[in-house]
């Protein structure tokens, strides 16, 4: 690869294939080329550099470098305990709530290092929303669940009903619940509860939405609805999803990253990871030889 070619390699897809061609570490040496970085930055929602994370003495993430492109679905795959959920939670600093967790390195959201000094963590979490494995609506009414986020962020009372409707519509739940907004959220079905949680996240108007195995407790029909919804959402949001379901990753995501024992083994376009993995371990996991 020489400099002239690199100047033309502007689209993210090209960059990915380029990364894979030259190997992962080399890419970051390369990235320091000033001609290349501005264009990259414009397309990156999240940029992770040399991220290390320890739980006590146990290193759970090792030297992670990863770029997450805007308006795409990015899936994190790997066997249980490989650190993919931990990695997801570094992006909205949810690991802060674990007392013996120590983090080094940089995670930049929109170019700003969220582990830097003077970062407003609540503001960050407003920008980077999260949907959890188990649907966790608050024990309040459907309406109050959605209104909670805007309320704590000081949105005026007049605007809230509009936000609630808009969020529920975006999460494809409005038609099912519009006549029962005052009912407890816990009276909804599992799949509806998970869509409610998505709507609740949308209500604070984030830029990025993190999904931590959002469908693992749902039946195939509810799963299908959520997948459809994600495909719709990526027009306006950047989506990062942790999933155990390889088919799901292959179906919905544009890019994927494979984690194994705290290391990022391989990343690239989903099609490439699944059809033509560069690393033996990725191939082994994807073809079901382990994990």
């Amino acid at each position, binding site marked *: 690869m020489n400099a002239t070619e690199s100047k033309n390699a502007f689209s993210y897809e090209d960059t990915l294939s380029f990364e894979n061609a030259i190997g992962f570490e080399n890419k970051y040496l390369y990235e320091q080329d000033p001609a290349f970085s501005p264009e990259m930055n414009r397309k990156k929602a999240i940029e992770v550099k040399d991220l290390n994370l320890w739980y006590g003495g146990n290193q759970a993430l090792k030297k992670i470098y990863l770029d997450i492109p805007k308006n795409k679905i990015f899936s994190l795959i790997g066997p249980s305990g490989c650190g993919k959920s931990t990695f997801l939670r570094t992006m909205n600093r*949810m690991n802060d709530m674990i007392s013996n967790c120590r983090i080094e390195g940089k995670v930049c959201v929109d170019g700003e290092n969220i582990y830097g000094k003077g970062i407003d963590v609540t503001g*960050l979490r407003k920008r980077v929303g999260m949907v*959890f494995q188990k649907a*966790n609506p608050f024990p*309040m009414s459907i309406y109050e669940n959605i209104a909670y986020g805007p309320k*704590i962020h000081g949105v005026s009372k007049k605007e809230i009903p509009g936000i609630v409707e808009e969020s529920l519509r975006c999460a494809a739940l409005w038609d099912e619940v519009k006549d029962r907004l005052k009912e*407890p959220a*816990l*009276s909804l079905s599992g799949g509806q509860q998970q869509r409610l949680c998505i709507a609740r996240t949308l209500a604070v108007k984030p830029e990025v939405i993190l999904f931590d195995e959002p469908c693992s407790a749902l039946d195939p029909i509810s799963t299908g609805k959520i997948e459809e919804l994600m495909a719709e959402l990526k027009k306006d949001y950047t989506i990062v999803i942790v999933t155990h379901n390889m088919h799901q990753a292959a179906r919905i995501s544009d890019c994927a990253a494979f984690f194994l024992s705290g290391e990022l083994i391989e990343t690239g376009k989903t099609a490439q990871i699944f059809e033509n993995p560069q690393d033996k371990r990725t191939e082994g996991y994807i073809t079901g030889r382990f994990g």
Partner: protein
Amino acid sequence: MSYENRYSDELGQDPVLKKKTARRKKQELYQKTAFLLIKLSAAAAILTLIIIIGDIVLKGYPAVTIEFLTRMPVNQMTEGGILPCVIGTVELILLSLLTAVPLGVIAAVYMTEYAADGKIKCAVEEAVNTLAGTPSVIFGLFGMALFIKYIGLPQSLLTASLTMGLLIMPVIIRTTQEALLAVPKEYREASRALGATKWETIRCVILPAAYSGLITGIIISVGRAAGETAPILFTGAVYYYPKLPDSVFSPFMALSYHLYVLATESMNIELTRSLQYGTALVLLAIVFSMNLIAAGVRRHYKKKLSSN
């Protein structure tokens, strides 16, 4: 010989099977005995309650008239009503809840949500447990020493309520703590992930979810505040006070102490027997109706919060 008979004969002779059947029979016997014991103890508890309440209701019912409830005691408390005692007890319960609930809830929130695990938290928790088990007369003496002798408050409704508040605070702290711990971790995570601060999460999500546990604590406390006599004996309740308490600084009469006085120290104990039963019935009714209100509030919250 039919097939079935032959089969059962063979079974009956098999030594291994015989042993198994014997063991199973023994186990069934054990189980039946255990169930019987459990049922008996449950019956004993319920029966005791029924006997006590039944006795009080039957003997106290004739004494409880509108006049009994709305008049002052007269003729050296051998006649008349118990109005000042009813008002005194209700005020005592409300005022002691007013002191204990906010302080207790704040303490419980601090201990479950903010205090780091360590020796200090452990020591505070042990202290609360010890306080919850401390005899009420100690609280009475402590209240007298602190509020009356040291601070210089008069023997009054306020002093008695503060002392009673101290007595019920450990109960409030413990039940609130348990209620807070029972709130699923997922709610905290969801709220924090939306960008709520810790305090917003506690105020808007965790405390509301813990209301029903908190109300259970209040129900237990109401019973204790209404019934305990020792803490108010030295601090504000009096043998006889011919007026209704006009401010929190005046002494007052309470049902529990009035009952004690009628039953042990009055001029003619036999003569006031029906008054005693009537007083006991009114005390029970007050505690019961306050619990009913609390249970209603709890049901309202549960209904609002969850599907069933």
